[in-house]
């Protein structure tokens, strides 16, 4: 692939820093006007919708939950934790070890029926908006574990946004999944999952939180 670089200032010759400084001072003293002012404003302002700006900010600061289930977890750790794969390039490397601060849950490994309520609880504790990636064959469909101990696909008990196939997926595959999730966040952040999963009532509301006086009593 050929890499092309686009200059930031639209192909004009890079201006001297001193010139720019002087212009800024003129601006502040209200001395520039007309074409100069128009150009200055054009260079520095960006118009967009508030939603788009919000989604752009969300997709570039994904906080994955530091949470592993089985062998895929090793692969997940190399993706979100190692400099070789460097997920910081996509703005998703800040791992949080409490669900209260995370907004991306990566289900890395098979989900046993004893673990399912715990995962559901972690998911409910995460702040909205929140997203889930089912990493690998096991958490997507139970993979080879067609038996009594493993939940047959994690989407039986929580909404899953992205399924990454593989056993385990290569780091590139997981990164691709995260990038797909970012596309999704940019487009339609929640895809109406509350309707699809009939999940009304699972929102964290102020009245359901522990009130301080209830704790004292």
């Amino acid at each position, binding site marked *: 692939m050929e890499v092309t670089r686009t200059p930031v200032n639209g192909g004009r010759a890079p201006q001297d820093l001193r010139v720019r400084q002087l212009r800024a001072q003129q601006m502040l003293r209200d001395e520039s006007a007309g074409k100069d002012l128009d150009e200055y404003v054009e260079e520095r302002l960006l118009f967009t919708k508030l939603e788009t700006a919000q989604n752009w900010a969300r997709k570039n600061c994904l906080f994955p939950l530091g949470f592993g289930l089985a062998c895929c977890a090793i692969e997940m750790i190399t993706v979100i934790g190692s400099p070789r794969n460097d997920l910081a390039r996509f703005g998703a490397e800040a791992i949080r070890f409490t669900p209260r601060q995370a907004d991306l849950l990566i289900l890395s490994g098979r989900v046993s029926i004893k673990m399912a309520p715990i995962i559901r609880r972690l998911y409910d504790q995460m702040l909205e908006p929140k997203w889930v990636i089912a990493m690998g064959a096991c958490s997507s469909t139970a993979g080879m574990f067609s*038996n009594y101990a493993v939940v*047959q696909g994690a989407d039986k008990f929580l909404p899953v946004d992205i399924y990454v196939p593989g056993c385990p997926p290569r780091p590139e595959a997981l990164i691709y999944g995260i990038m797909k999730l970012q596309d999704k966040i940019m487009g339609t952040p929640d895809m109406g999952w509350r309707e699809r999963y009939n999940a009304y009532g699972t929102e964290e509301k102020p009245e359901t939180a522990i009130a301080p006086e209830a704790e004292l009593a």
Partner: protein
Amino acid sequence: MPDATGLELIAQAVRAELGDEAVVGTSFFREQATLQVAPERLHDVIGYLRQADEPWDTLMSVHGCDYLPEEPRLGIHYELLSMERVDRLRVKTRVGVDDPRVPSVVDLFAGANFHEREVFDMFGVEFDGHPDLRRLLMPEDYVGYPQRRDFPLGGEPVMFTFNEHKYPRWYD
């Protein structure tokens, strides 16, 4: 492992100590010595072997087993080891599936605690005298004993092109 003669000597000593009905039989297969024991005398036999003249002082593991077409169905296996003589002996017992009860050996070997809980979890064998007989691996509210052979495998049918005809009009 004791050889075939040694196994018969052990069985003889147990019978002399605890009565003829304690040992149901012996088997010597592929250099492995097994003592078959009546389930109600199991605690006595293992207690005797633990402090016999040549003792088996370590219980390595407790297994469950389901011999489905045969009766009685469930088997519980105890693997004994003598650290001094580097010698192993297997003790087996069989119970029926309608009332699977075996005396617990936790008072003799404390390490049997989790092993017996696992056998209870997977096969539903109840160990009398166990201090804390709860499920070990499966959730507390799980129904059934999943390692029994008549337990359904679970899972979901997965469709491939070769078994497509088993699910007619799957695309609807």
